[in-house]
């Protein structure tokens, strides 16, 4: 009986954690987002007023403000596009790699897996900073290009959206490879041989057999990359320039520079809803589809 109770607490403790550090803060953010802003500390009014009897002091002004200014929506759209492009490149690079790892012999496989994970052993910040050094005007890449005579003057490789995409793809690649590997590992290689035996060449075999059976891994890896990239702050901040503004940076500025807490909260809350709702709907539809198709 005691053990049963312990089991229950043990299993459900992560949920308590989630409630404590995700749902409660989320509720606080929502509360701030519907508060009226003012100068002061904290820079918003209480939502329950008791001066002249009980009064609820809420407003949707902050949401109206955010959605009426393209500055905010545009940054969110930029972040979505960035996440889409990064996920696409992670998939493009990660899929063949994961497939190769999953189908190689055990010794080579373990070495390759360790190589994928090794970057995690050093600080994320350091790795992004290293890219800054590589890409800067007198950085190693430009030095090589100049010495080879490929360019006559240093290229502006840093502080633009391409540097951001590169940094993100580099950082998030393992998050794509590992779940993909997890699914491809279980792949019955006889299926590929069977497809070839039945007359399909390599390309057709890929699209008719390998790809459809890899969908769960592709979905898992893509979500793992896509969702955090939308809110990514550090990489655009370090490698990006003023050519494109991203959601994470705008949020930071609204909060810490403009000290518009209600506006920033409204922005954060809208972002979560816009991102989470379609993904939840997608997950429901997808689980129905995969149940039907027994993948």
């Amino acid at each position, binding site marked *: 009986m005691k053990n049963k109770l312990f089991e229950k607490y043990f299993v459900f403790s992560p949920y308590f954690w989630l409630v404590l550090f995700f749902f409660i803060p989320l509720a606080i953010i929502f509360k701030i987002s519907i508060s009226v802003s003012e100068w002061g500390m904290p820079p918003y009014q209480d939502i329950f007023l008791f001066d002249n009897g009980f009064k609820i002091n809420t407003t949707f002004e902050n949401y109206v403000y955010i959605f009426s200014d393209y500055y905010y929506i545009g940054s969110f759209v930029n972040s979505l596009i960035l996440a889409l492009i990064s996920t696409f490149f992670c998939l493009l690079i990660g899929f063949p790699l994961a497939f190769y790892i999953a189908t190689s012999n055990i010794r080579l496989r373990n070495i390759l897996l360790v190589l994928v994970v090794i970057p995690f052993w050093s600080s994320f910040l350091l790795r992004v900073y290293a890219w800054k050094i590589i890409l800067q005007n007198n950085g190693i890449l430009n030095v090589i290009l100049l010495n080879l005579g490929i360019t006559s003057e240093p290229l502006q490789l840093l502080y633009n959206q391409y540097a951001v995409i590169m940094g993100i793809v580099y950082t998030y690649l393992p998050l794509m490879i590992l779940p993909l590997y997890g699914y491809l590992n279980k792949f*019955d290689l*006889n*299926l590929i*041989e*069977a*497809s*070839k*035996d*039945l*007359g*399909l*060449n390599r390309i*057709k075999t890929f699209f*008719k*057999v390998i790809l*459809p*059976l890899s969908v769960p891994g592709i979905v898992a890896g893509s979500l793992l990359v896509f969702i955090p990239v939308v809110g990514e702050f550090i990489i655009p901040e370090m490698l990006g320039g003023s050519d494109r503004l991203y959601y994470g940076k705008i949020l930071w500025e609204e909060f810490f520079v403009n000290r518009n807490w209600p506006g920033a909260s409204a922005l954060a809350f809208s972002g979560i809803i816009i991102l989470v709702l379609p993904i939840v709907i997608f997950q429901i539809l997808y689980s129905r589809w995969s149940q039907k*198709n*027994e*993948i």
Partner: protein
Amino acid sequence: MDNNFLVIENISKSFGDNKVLENINLNISKSEFFGLLGSSGSGKTTLLRILGGFEKPDTGRVILDGTDITNLEPFKRPLNYMFQSYALFPHLNVFNNLAFGIKENFTQKEIEINVRNIAKLLSIEHLLNRRIKQLSGGEQQRVALGRCLIKKPKLLLLDEPLAALDKKLRSKTQLELTTLQKKLKITFVFVTHDQEEAMSLSDRMAIMKNGLILECSSPEEIYENPKSLYTANFIGIANIIEIYKKDENFYSDDLGINFKLNKELKNTKTNILLRPEKIKIQSINNLNTSSFNSFSGEILEKSYLGSFTRYEIKIKNMIISVLDQNFNSNSNYNFPKGEKVICSWESESIKVLED
């Protein structure tokens, strides 16, 4: 009959230092049901995979119906391969699994007709809309077979076609497979480690060991006249007795008796094979005994198998297996354990194994 429909010529294959196949030569006729029998590691599956195009041989050629297919990709070979695991596509239903190989070159209507025909042939019409996971092992085997046969291959390769089925289903499917093969007249080459399966399915079979073909002949010939000690032991039950020349006759130290052979021997010492069903077992009271080709021994073990009784009979240093057919239903006919009996055989039943 065209003996050169499938020609396997000097095929060798190594994986690293491991020689898997050494100089394999085989000729297989059109419409033949050919078995490759061997224990695991004998190289039989590698040979089948070379025929399927999944492995490239180090040396040698494979010629199918006059065309050299050695370097053709699997998807360009006019043959099909049935995998031991069946390798059915889990994301497709039975219909689409069957249609998988013909979708490219056929119209929707032709596909429909072809799938229905093959499903009818294999009695799986009622399963067409099922998912693969909803099928039993036997049904999966039929779908795998149908998926190959729908392509009308010149040659069908089968890797352990019955290994995944339970025993009862296996004997039923064995019969169906031979009937189907004779009806379609497609050349079948299959691999198995099960000697009974090889005997019952094959028109001819090859015994493989350590990358070599030891013998290639009809099941009857291999059972009755095996050329090597290995084959004699591998196929069926074998009593192997060492004999040597002594005076006019041959003598076995293990049994302590004389043998009379109906042919001359090259060597003075050799192994002979005596199949257990060739030995006649009689009561000790029977006076019809001779000094040659017979012995008296004691029944050590006895197992009643229905149509046969198998006795293990001890004589001197050896235990000889005897299969005795149960002619009448009189239970007294069986000899009890511990009884002394006389065993005898014809000279013609002794097979000399000259390695």
